[in-house]
């Protein structure tokens, strides 16, 4: 078993966490999130065409009066991703764009992917994404509250907020696209981070019962050390899988796996440096869990 003194670093870690958290909030509020067409509406076209340039595609589309256009290289040579903001009727818009590109680019154009989301649908998708994340946080809160004491419940939920907000903050900072798969990633991060926290909490509760004389900082420290090997090994195997997706899984999964990688790192950090110290602020001791036991078994 390792014997690092984590509790001595709680204070510094907490200052770091609070700072990152608020910087993230500020970024999300003022810089905003870069919503993809899933949540903003619009059209996305992925095409493959040799002997063409992004600037050429841009020129062709510029003449069509489509509003904001974004053309960039996407993965392999000759692959491009076009995003068009104009929310005109799908039925007319897409054939028009396709025809224009096929006619004006001097090589074969292969339309590999076309996505179009209308304004109504995008608003609904955003709404259901937010509901899904809120609901999962609530469900976690409830689960921990049932399984543990309320102090643990609050501690874990603070850690989850910490993870989700900082992950989104980094996405805002780097202007990475938020789409449906990022919502899936965030929800998985919520599950993963909770998983990590629960393992340490389980141990804290066990040790609280075993060592009545130790105070919560020492108990937390002991429990973190006892579970550290597992925490690290699981993070490593999960990250191995995720890096494999990030590097080899293709362009479409890149954002998703990047969000997950961030989430796993932040989630692992927060189980140790956010979820555990919080118990200290609630003055959790062996009495906390004893009372709970009395309640259940009269």
């Amino acid at each position, binding site marked *: *078993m390792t014997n690092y003194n984590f509790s001595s670093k709680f204070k510094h870690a907490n200052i770091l966490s609070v700072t990152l958290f608020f910087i993230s909030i500020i970024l999300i509020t003022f810089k905003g999130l870069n919503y993809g067409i899933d949540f903003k509406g619009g059209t996305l076209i992925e095409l493959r065409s040799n002997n063409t340039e992004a600037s050429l595609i841009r020129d062709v589309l510029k003449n069509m009066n489509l509003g904001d256009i974004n053309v960039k290289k996407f993965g392999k040579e000759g692959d491009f991703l076009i995003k068009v903001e104009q929310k005109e*009727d*799908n*039925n007319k818009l*897409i*054939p028009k764009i*396709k025809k224009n590109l096929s006619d004006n680019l001097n090589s074969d154009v*292969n*339309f*590999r*992917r*076309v*996505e*179009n*989301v*209308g304004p*109504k*649908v995008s608003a609904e998708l955003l709404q259901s994404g937010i*509901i*899904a994340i809120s*609901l*999962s946080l609530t469900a*976690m809160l409830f*689960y921990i509250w049932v*399984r543990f004491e309320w102090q643990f419940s609050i501690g874990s939920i603070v850690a989850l907020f910490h993870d989700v907000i900082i992950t989104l903050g980094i996405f805002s900072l780097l202007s990475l696209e938020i789409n*449906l*798969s990022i*919502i*899936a990633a965030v*929800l*998985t991060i919520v*599950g993963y981070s909770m*998983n*990590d926290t*629960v*393992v340490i909490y*389980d*141990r804290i509760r066990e040790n609280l019962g075993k060592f009545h004389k130790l105070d919560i900082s020492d108990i937390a420290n002991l429990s973190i050390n006892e*579970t550290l*090997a*597992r925490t690290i*090994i*699981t993070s490593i*195997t*999960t*990250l*191995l*899988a*995720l890096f*494999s*997706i990030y*590097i*080899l*899984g*293709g362009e*479409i*999964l890149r954002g*998703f*796996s990047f969000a*997950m990688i961030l989430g796993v790192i932040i989630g692992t950090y927060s189980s140790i440096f956010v979820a555990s110290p919080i118990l200290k602020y609630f003055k959790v001791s062996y009495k906390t869990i004893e009372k709970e036991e009395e309640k259940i078994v009269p």
Partner: protein
Amino acid sequence: MLNFSKINVLIIYLLFLFIAVFTFLNFQDEDDQLINKKINLGLDLQGGSYLLLEINSDSLVKEKIQSKVIPIKKLLKDNEINYNNFKINENSLFLSIDNIKKFDLLFNSRKDNVVNPYIDNYRSYELEYKKINNNQIEIFFSKFGLLTINNSALKQSIEIVRRRIDDVGTKEPTILQRGEKRILVELPGLKDPERIKALLGKTAQLNFRLVSDNNEFGTEELISEVGEKLNISKRIIMSGENLVDAQPSIQNQNNEPTVSFTLDRLGAQKFGRATTDNVGKRLAIVLDGEIVSAPNINEPITSGNGMISGNFTFQEATDLALLLRSGALPTPLIVVEERTVGPDLGEDSIKSGVISLIVGFILVILFMLYKYKIFGLIANTALIANLLMLIGMLTILEATLTLPGIAGIILTVGMAVDANVLIFERIREELKTEKSIIHAFDSGYTRAKITVLDANITTLIAAIILFAFGSGPVKGFAITLGIGIITTLFTAYFLARHLTSVVVLNNKDKEISI
């Protein structure tokens, strides 16, 4: 925890085999299938088109309220209620009447009420009215009246959409109702959905109307196919409802593609009478408010057969015939969401998905071997078993595998070893204080059980919520992640535990380190 009765061992391995064997159904020959079950590939992997269509019942409501004007006027006249200031405004009618009490009685009578029928299902009338002042009232559709209009339009639209898509002949289309106003269409393998979108984008309301010489009352001005302004009578001689068949054909004289149609008996009568009475005049064929052509009536057509020409290409004639055969949509359909993936991108996605799965899998396996040696081997056996069971379960459920779904499998590989890691680490701790190796393993498993459960249930909760709220590809992720957790629990807690017990019990007297 290390003692297994023979029957338990049998059950564990039989259950494993039973589920895992389904994995191999995915590799059987198309024509030579033992059991017809396999994992379906999502549209993002096999290529195809996903369309979400929305009906627009607003225009329909306007139309329906207009159709109430004549019955209401008749009702008032028949019952000697005087009215004036009759106005149609968007979705409601305004009028002043002199006897509201009498009107109320008639308007809300349940017996033989043609004007305002009572809808039994909803226990509500189709229409409602409210008093604006002393004798002025506003008549409009009730909440349930609107719902009835919407629902019947949606049902009818789904039927027509199905007919049109079947007629084009794509393989295995999915057409489903989504919510109150939407139709989901999935067309696997379709590379270019533009033709289908064009076919679904037309309501195809066809009618035959006479061309009038002057712009008298009851006509509207439409531009003909050759650009001449024509006054077209608003009176409809016959509409597309009377068609029983329509086919593209080539007119022999000048090789021009045309659409020939056959009318039902009623249509043939109407058409025959109109063409007999109006020989020499021009007849406009109007589709969705646009003139297709306006030929001269040379002689009465009483056979119930006719032909539409209008400078078509053969493709246009084929599509028009298809639209006329399938019937008119009650309202225009708008594509509110479209996701089309070309087949080559789908193939690329499968390729990169599978490669990253294999690489991720090998990395995790090597790491576990390095970290836990012989027990790493157990964990890895459990991992392979886990993967087989996961794919087997997906096959049994005939689930749809999407690209994020593959990511879910890879993630499961990374996270699945966690259960065994938790247990092994616990055993390591127990070995320090416990002299008996068997006891150490035993209590390691017992103590880690709660933690393993807790840790996995949290991820399961996330997966369930994702499944409930996610759409399309994301749902595929939730499915693999969720099933992955269950197979993980099974393989770690039953399979790996049994393997561990075999290793431990056979090496009772030796030192075992983990």
